[in-house]
C-alpha cells in the first residue's frame, strides 16, 4: 500500500508542512454544514452517538491508517475513559469539562502502559496483544467495585459545562459534542499532516529505512499509540455523558471489532472515511436493533464483503474515482 498523498503534496519532503488541499477544505465545510443542520432533522441523541463513534474511529484510524498497526483492543480506551468520566462526575461531583478531561487522561495513561508493551510487536502479534490487554481491562471493569459490574454506572449527571451551558438541554449538549468531535477531528488531521505524521508514514512504508535515517521508530509509534488512545478516550468520556451511562459494552472486545468495522468500511487511512463508516454502522445498528442477532450477521457480512471486494472503503473508493485523497 503506497501512500497516495495526492497531486498537491507529492513533492513535499518530510519535514515541511503540507498546504491544505482545496478538496479537503470543501469536504470539511460540507461535513460541518451537514452536522450543524442535522439535529433539526434527525434525532439528536442518535447523532451524538454517531459523532462519538466517528471520533473513536478517527482515533483508531490514526494507528491503522498511518502507522499500519491494527489494534484489536481499542475498546479498552473507550470504556476506561467512559468509566473515568462517569465515576468522577457521579461520585466526585466533577463538572462535565473536568469529567471529560479526567476520563481522557485515564485513557491516555492506559495508552502509555499498553502501548509501551504492545509497540514492540507488529502485525498479527500486535493485534493479539492489544486484544489481550483489552480483555484484562474488561475483566477489571467486571470485578472492580466502582464500575458497578454488570449494571455499569447509571444516571451519570450531565451537569453544566463551565458553569454556563446547561447540558441537560439536548440541543446544547449536541453542539458541545459536535465541538468536541470537530476539535478532535482537526487535531488528528493536524497530527497526520505534520512532520510527525510524515515520519509515521515513513515508518509504515519501511521501518528499517526510517530507523536508518535516524528516526526513533519505537518512540514515534508509541506517541501515535498514546494519541490514538487519548482521542478514543475523549470519545468514550463524551459518550458516557451523552448516554449518562458507562457500561461493560464499551469495554468488551466486540466494541474493538466494531471500530475496526467502521474504519474499514469508511476507508483505512483516509481522512473522512472513519466518520462516514461510523455513521453508516451506527445507522445500520439503529435500524437492525430490533432484529437481535441479525446485527452481528450483517456486521460480519460487511466485514467479508469489504475485505474481499472493497478494501479501500467507501471514501477510499470515492477518492480513487476522483483522483483526490479524501
Amino acid at each position: 500500500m503506497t501512500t497516495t498523498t495526492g497531486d498537491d503534496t507529492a513533492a513535499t519532503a518530510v519535514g515541511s508542512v503540507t498546504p491544505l488541499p482545496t478538496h479537503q477544505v470543501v469536504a470539511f465545510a460540507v461535513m460541518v454544514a451537514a452536522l450543524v443542520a442535522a439535529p433539526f432533522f434527525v434525532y439528536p441523541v442518535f447523532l451524538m452517538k454517531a459523532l462519538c463513534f466517528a471520533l473513536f474511529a478517527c482515533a483508531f484510524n490514526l494507528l491503522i491508517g498511518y502507522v499500519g498497526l491494527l489494534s484489536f483492543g481499542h475498546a479498552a480506551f473507550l470504556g476506561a475513559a467512559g468509566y473515568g468520566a462517569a465515576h468522577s462526575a457521579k461520585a466526585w461531583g466533577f463538572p462535565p469539562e473536568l469529567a471529560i478531561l479526567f476520563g481522557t487522561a485515564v485513557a491516555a495513561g492506559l495508552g502509555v502502559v499498553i502501548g509501551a508493551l504492545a509497540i514492540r510487536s507488529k502485525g498479527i502479534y500486535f493485534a493479539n496483544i492489544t486484544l489481550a490487554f483489552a480483555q484484562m481491562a474488561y475483566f477489571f471493569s467486571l470485578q472492580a467495585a466502582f464500575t458497578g459490574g454488570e449494571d455499569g454506572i447509571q444516571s451519570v449527571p450531565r451537569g453544566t459545562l463551565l458553569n454556563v451551558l446547561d447540558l441537560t438541554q439536548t440541543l446544547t449538549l449536541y453542539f458541545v459534542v459536535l465541538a468536541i468531535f470537530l476539535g478532535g477531528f482537526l487535531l488528528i488531521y493536524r497530527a497526520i499532516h505534520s512532520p510527525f505524521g510524515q515520519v509515521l508514514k515513513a515508518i509504515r512504508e519501511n521501518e528499517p529505512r526510517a530507523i536508518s535515517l535516524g528516526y526513533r521508530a519505537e518512540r514515534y509509534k508509541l506517541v501515535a499509540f498514546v494519541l490514538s488512545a487519548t482521542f478514543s478516550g475523549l470519545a468514550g468520556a463524551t459518550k458516557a455523558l451523552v448516554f449518562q451511562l458507562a457500561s461493560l459494552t464499551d469495554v468488551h472486545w466486540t466494541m474493538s471489532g466494531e471500530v475496526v468495522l467502521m474504519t474499514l468500511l469508511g476507508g483505512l487511512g483516509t481522512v473522512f472515511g472513519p466518520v462516514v463508516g461510523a455513521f453508516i454502522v451506527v445507522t445500520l445498528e439503529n435500524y437492525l436493533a430490533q432484529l437481535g442477532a441479525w446485527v452481528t450477521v450483517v456486521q460480519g457480512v460487511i466485514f467479508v464483503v469489504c475485505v474481499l471486494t472493497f478494501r479501500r472503503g467507501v471514501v477510499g473508493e470515492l477518492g480513487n474515482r476522483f483522483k483526490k485523497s479524501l
Partner: protein
Amino acid sequence: MTTIFGVPTQALFGQLLIGLINGAFYAMLSLGLSVIFGLLNIINFTHGAQYMMGAFVAYFLLQWAGLGYWWALLIAPVVVGITGIVLERTTLKRLYQLDHLYGLLLTFGFALIIQGLFRHEYGSSGLPYPMPAQLGGGRNLGFMFLPNYRAWVIVFSLAVCLATWYVIERTRLGAYLRAATENPSLVQAFGINVPRMITLTYGFGVGLAALAGVLAAPIYQVNPLMGADLIIVVFAVVVIGGLGSIMGSIVTGFALGVIEGFTKVFYPEASNTVIFVIMALVLLVRPAGLFGRAS
C-alpha cells in the same frame, strides 16, 4: 481434612482437574491455530465459531440422525473441516498475497456471521448434550473423586495433541509441511502441490477445533457463544507459547489451564486475568513467546 497452604486438598485437586480440562481445550484449540498460522500466516478468528460448530454438529447428529457421541467424535470434525475447506478455497486463498491482517479481518467477519446465525436460531441459552453412557460415573482416587468423562477428555486430547505433533515433526508429510512453512515456492518447485496442502492444513486445523467442540459438549452445554470468549483466551495462550510452535501450544495450553485453576483456589479475583498477566510478563522478556523463534 488435610490441607495444603491452608487450602483443603479436595478443593485443590478439584481445581487442578478443572484446570487440566480447560488446559486440554486450550491446547487443542491453540494447536489448531498454530498449525494454520504456520502455513497460512493468518490468525484464524473463526476458530471459536468452528469449535462451537463442532458441538452443534454433535447435537444435530443426535437429534436428527440418532447418532451418539462416538459417531459425533468421528463425523463432526470431518463435516466442520469440510466447511473450513470450502471457506479457504472460496475466500481465504484470495488474500494470501495481501497484508495478513486482511485474513484476520475476514475470519473475524465469518465468526460474526456464524455466531449470529446460530444465536438467531438457538438463542443464547445452552442446549444439553448427554454424556456417553460408557463414560458416566467416576472413580474415587482416595484423595479426590475423578469423573470418568473428565479423565477421558484429558487423556484423549493429550493423545490427539501428541499424535499431531508426531505427524508434523516426525513424518515425511510433516516434513513437507514444515518445508512449505519455510519456503512455499521452493517446495512447489519440487513438485509438491502446496495450495492443496494449505487447503488441507486449514481443514485439519478447523477439524481439531470441531473435535474440541464435541469433547466440550457434554461438559459445558452446546451454546452458540461457547467459543466467542474462549477464543480470546486461546489467542493469549498462543502468544505466550509462540505462534506457529506445535509443542509450544500443547505445553502452554495445559500449563496455563492448570495455572488458571490454581489461581481460582488461591486468588479467585485474578482467575480471569491471570493468563493475560502472564502474557504481558512473557512478552516483556521474550517478545516471540516462550517457544517461538524471533522472526
